């Protein structure tokens, strides 16, 4: 079989696609973006009640933050932990800010109307039960929401969550218990972990 060299067909420079950065630092960020944007976006979507614009903003913030630390990051599974931690904390900060802004006195001061609730079934139109689960989660205070999901969805230990959120194991335990109590009050069952 004679190989014919084809230098044209189907080939384009990545830069013409707007897909390649220049410096080594930027290249590294680009590489990590390709690898971890799915993880970051999924976490943000979970905590952002399925709001894709919200999740996109968080994803952008996380990877912009990456520029500051990319030189210190080392290859390995610790990277995933870093993205998990930073994304969770970004989500928590945003949720707290939004909760504050959504409070009646602040809305009155800012002259804003109450925002309509985000339809939690937008991503799960075919699965009503999932949409309801999301609505229950949305009722929890931000920190309890994160702690509950980290334990019951991601399988993190209380110590790990404490390291991520910057709290003691005892306080994290209290957050999780409070969240579980609220969820039970809402008519749902919570497994014992």
């Amino acid at each position, binding site marked *: *079989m*004679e*190989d*014919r*060299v*084809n*230098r*044209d*067909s*189907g*080939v*384009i*420079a990545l*830069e*013409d*696609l*707007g897909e390649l*950065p*220049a*410096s080594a630092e*930027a*290249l590294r*960020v*680009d*590489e990590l*973006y*390709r*690898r*971890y944007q*799915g*993880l970051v*976006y*999924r976490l943000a979507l*979970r905590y952002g009640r399925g709001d*894709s614009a919200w999740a996109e903003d968080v994803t952008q913030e996380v*990877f*912009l933050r990456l*520029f500051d*630390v990319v030189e*210190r990051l*080392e290859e*390995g*599974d*610790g990277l*995933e*932990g870093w993205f998990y*931690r930073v994304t969770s904390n970004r989500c928590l900060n945003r949720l707290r800010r939004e909760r504050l802004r959504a409070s009646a006195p602040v809305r009155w001061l800012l002259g804003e109307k109450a925002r309509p609730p985000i339809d939690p079934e937008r*991503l*799960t139109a075919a*699965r009503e*039960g*999932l949409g*309801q*689960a*999301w609505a229950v989660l949305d009722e929890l205070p931000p920190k309890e929401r994160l702690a509950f999901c980290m334990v019951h*969805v991601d399988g993190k230990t209380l110590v790990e969550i404490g390291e991520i959120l910057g709290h003691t194991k005892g306080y994290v335990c209290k957050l999780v218990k409070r969240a579980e109590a609220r969820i039970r009050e809402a008519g*749902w*069952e*919570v*497994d014992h972990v």
Partner: protein
Amino acid sequence: MSERPRLAPSLRELDEVLAERGMPRHARDRVGARLRREALRREATSGFRFRWLPALTFAAGAALVLMVVGVRLRQPPPISSQTASSTPTVFGGSFSVQGESCRHVDRGPEVELRGTCLLSAPHLAVHTWDRVRLRHDRADHESPGDVRLVEGTAMFDVTRVVEGAPPTRIPVSHGVIEVLGTRFTIEQGPLGGHVDLFEGRIRFIDLEGVVTEIAPGQRHAWGDAVAMLSPAPNEDAESLAPGGSRTPAVAATATATVVTTERDAASEADHAGEPDRDVHPPRRRSARAEPRAAEDDDDAVATADDATALIDEVGRLRAQGRYGDAAEVLRRAERTRHWDARTAQVLSYELGEIIERHLGDRQAACEHWARHAERWPQGRYARAVKAAQERLACPNQQNDQ
């Protein structure tokens, strides 16, 4: 007995739904473009950091004194100290799969990976972050190391290439990718896909035996993905905020260059009648950097704010397709401001890119690249400039050889 629904399994199922959907393409592109602009901004302004060197030295000295008198500075724990708890799982005889949230389903010679996974072999590492189907292709080839990407996106890192040894081969739907030591990403869909090469050298051999050599910084597509292979500037212009994006440096093929040039030439023609006064000076200038008459301003020292404002302005003009104006702004900036060496290189490279790719002026591009190469023979863009000169078959380049 309670018949109440259980929340945690529902949330886990919800997570699976989100993971399968992934980040939409347009959102990925928007964030990617924003990151590239940030990279450029940092690159252009980083040179100014050195002006703070004396202050930093003083601060370091002060910190040392404080330490000597007994103040202990607590260092934050290293980011990389977090470790994964997962253990590798072997599949296909010679491959192991691991990752903290990596899930895999073995189906004979095929494995489906979900989450962030690392597939390792003695000569090859495959990073995956979405749903990916891989197949151990021992039957098709003699080499025991062949991995077929059936579906999904994966980044391949070929770590060891022995001189004279047969190249690693990665079969895809429309051919085989031969790897000669490199780092690249393959995205394989049901009817086609593409490979993005970052480093090293690979070649694509299609089912009819046609070989396509792929250089670093290039994408090669096959199947239905070929139809989507078109340059992105206009898409950026629509999707980005004012300020636009910046396309950095690497070699391009003749085809890609011609496509870009033809379209942008048309765009240039639309703006050909615009007078020079339409070329606005960079916005967000500091008071010191207020625009002044060009010719009597030779000694003006540029600040980091100037660099940022200039990049924003050039990005905005590029996003509007006003490449001639963007080039003029860069030329004027080169003439009228004294930039530090690092920023000057970035601006010069940017100007060369616009002249070559968007204005399509080969002679001017050759002259510009020659000046650039003469000014920074060992500069950060030396390889890219050399590649550009070769691509354009610039006379001085030919003489060099």
